[in-house]
């Protein structure tokens, strides 16, 4: 992974968000003493490389009345896992969907899908919808609700110049 110092400054400058002005990239450029063209081309290159996943807004689920969530886990056929993961990930109420290794014999599940809903009943109903979608390709499933936050710290991203 190589980020040059200018990329790092650009990441540090935009990590907490884009300015809400008509020319946001020109504004970022002025902070960093770069041209707008350079900011645009560097951001495009970072997006091309997957370092920027998307430029977007993130809704606050809680404010939008979506206060219940459960981590649903599924044991799906390895050969179909990518295809099924894409389908589950595309559901409206699934925010995070990951393929992870099993830890046999303790843990047979390889597909993790975070389900959001207004309350636990809605989360359970949505879990049934995923079960229908997966059909016989899922051999077993479970759902884990968080009962307590034990620790929560912000993501620590590499600082400019590291």
């Amino acid at each position, binding site marked *: 992974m190589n980020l040059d110092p200018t990329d790092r400054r650009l990441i540090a400058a935009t990590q907490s*968000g884009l300015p*809400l002005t008509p020319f946001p990239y020109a504004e970022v450029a002025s902070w960093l003493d770069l041209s707008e063209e350079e900011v645009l081309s560097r*951001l495009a290159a970072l*997006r091309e490389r997957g*370092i920027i996943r998307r*430029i*977007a807004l993130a809704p606050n689920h809680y404010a939008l009345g979506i206060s219940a969530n459960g981590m649903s886990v599924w044991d799906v056929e390895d050969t179909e896992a990518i295809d099924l993961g894409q389908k589950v990930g595309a559901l409206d109420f699934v925010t995070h969907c990951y393929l992870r290794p099993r830890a046999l014999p*303790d843990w047979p599940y390889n597909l*993790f899908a975070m389900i959001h809903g207004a309350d636990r009943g809605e989360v359970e109903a949505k879990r049934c919808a995923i079960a229908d979608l997966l059909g016989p390709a899922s051999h077993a499933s479970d759902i*884990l609700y968080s009962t307590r936050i034990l620790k929560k710290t912000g993501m620590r991203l590499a600082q400019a110049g590291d």
Partner: protein
Amino acid sequence: MSRTPLAQNELDVIDRTILNELQSNFPLTHQPFTEVGRDLGISEQELIDRIRRLRTIKAITRFGPFFDAEAMGGAFCLCAMEVPAERFEEVVTLVNAHPQVAHNYERSHRLNMWFVLACETPDGIRAAADDIEQETGLPVLRFPKLKEFFIGFRVNA
């Protein structure tokens, strides 16, 4: 992050459309709000004002580029432990003492402790998980991400 739900009438149809449409693909262009506003049928200034208000009322947590921390050189791993009830608080203290533990949740399962390790390198993950096993005498199951599927989250428009 605010966990208080907004009043039902706080968001109109345009706000809801903005929330849905701007979860990906904000343009990398000279005047991006004009382009997006045109698609939504509103002016550049109205779009900017509405996003600012959505941020102020905490309907959104962030607006801008989302970076892949792994692509930027970090390593992450979801881990789980089965902690006996009578040792739970002691183990919470031991696990949380590691700065690599970014967040940690108690969950309703035999595997009742789930945390994310965030390190500079994959070796760091291995070392931190091994240390926690050593200190607690309990196995740390490791579930690194193999693939992520992201689409987003929709509000009723």
